[in-house]
């Protein structure tokens, strides 16, 4: 059954059809939320709220990209959660990272222990730099550089102009590059350092 049929059936109240869409997109939604929130527990909440909101608003979906529609709901939920956190600060992201599971998800069967360690360090460095970005810049960076959306799709998802998307991405990358370079001496493995060509 294709996506359009599933959406149509879900709009008519077929929860099984909707849940098939959930299964199809839950990893994407969760990962976008995780990159923006830098917190797996918050990402889990955001992902669940995203699918509940999507289900409740399914009748207002007027076609187009269902995936982009879901990501728009997810980024809006992330913004809501980030705003809420600013009003009521919780534990720092460093603490959350410490409490986090030990990056077992990064392990690949082919990885040697050394490669795994390097991957973990790189992921930590990028996440650390990502979380230091302003919210708006982090959202466009995640959508662009992590998820691979083009400028126009990001503009549609975040409901800002194309020019704003370009300028946010540009500033975010410059900050990320500076941040990673500043961490490079300690955290980044040689193979992943930015000034080494071919990486």
């Amino acid at each position: 059954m294709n996506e359009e049929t599933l959406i149509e059936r879900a709009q008519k109240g077929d929860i099984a059809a909707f849940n098939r869409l959930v299964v199809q997109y839950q990893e994407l939604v969760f990962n976008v939320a995780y990159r923006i929130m830098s917190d797996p527990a918050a990402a889990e909440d955001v992902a669940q709220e995203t699918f509940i909101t999507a289900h409740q608003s399914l009748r207002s979906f007027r076609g187009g990209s269902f995936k982009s529609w879901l990501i728009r709901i997810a980024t809006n939920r992330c913004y809501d959660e980030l705003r809420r956190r600013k009003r009521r600060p919780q534990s720092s992201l460093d603490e959350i990272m410490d409490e986090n599971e030990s990056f077992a998800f990064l392990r690949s069967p082919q990885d040697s222990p050394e490669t795994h360690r390097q991957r973990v360090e790189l992921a930590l460095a990028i996440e650390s730099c990502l979380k230091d970005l302003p919210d708006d810049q982090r959202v466009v960076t995640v959508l662009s550089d992590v998820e691979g959306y083009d400028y126009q799709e990001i503009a549609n998802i975040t409901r800002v102009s194309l020019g704003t998307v370009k300028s946010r991405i540009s500033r975010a990358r410059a900050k990320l590059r500076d941040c990673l370079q500043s961490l490079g001496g300690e955290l980044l493995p040689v193979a992943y350092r930015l000034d080494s060509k071919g990486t």
Partner: protein
Amino acid sequence: MRDRGDRDRLQETLDAYLDNALTPAERARFEAQMTADPRLRTEVEQLRALRWQMRAMPRRRVPRSFALDPAAYARPKAQPLLQLYPVLRGATALSAFLLIFVLALGAFQGQFGGAGAPAAAAVTSTTAQDSAEIAAIEAPQQPPAEESAAMTADEAARTASPETTTVTEEAAAAELAAPAPAGTSVPVPEGDLSLGASPPEATLLPNAGGAIAEAELAPTLAAEPTMELFAVQEAANAPAPEAVAQPSTLLLVQIGLGVLFLVLLALWLLARRRARSL
């Protein structure tokens, strides 16, 4: 050394180059610039590496399924506000247009005390039963004529001879006639109203010369019709009772449209907020 604006633009071009968002011409121009500037080329390579590293970040596995419980979410909730959003937008715009129209109509008719006040009075007092009320509404619009008539009458009284006492009365009558245009039924003393049209004629009367006592009496005689005049003026200054007591249909329409517009605007803003939160 590039200034900040140039640097920002170059940075944006650089990112657009990496994201394949440049036109062929822009791309060729940027590549030529890159060839000429090794530092720019290094910068591009660094950002390319960063982009690659971020894209290569492994995805996390979902901690659990986010599928919804069929028992709790059997049917999507109806979202009437979201579904009616386009209708609400159109209705709000239409009601705003109508409201502006009726307000403009009211302003045109002098409803808000503007230049068109007499016209408004004419409309609102169509139910008035006597023309005296029309005169009462219109009277304040013509104070200069009234004053000049009064002054002329006083002068006539001062310069009048005993024989001209009746002329003084006629001048007073002219005073009454002046603020009340033709067709009104303001009570006036009997007399030759034609004098009212040309009050200066009173001064053209031959000066009698003597009878100072009677001449002094003249203002007193003139005072009686003047008192009557004050009564008319007071009536003129008082607001027309029917115009105040009976709100016009236009006013009711304005209030109704205003309320309708506010309700629609509130609903539309609510629907828009919900739509934007999706």
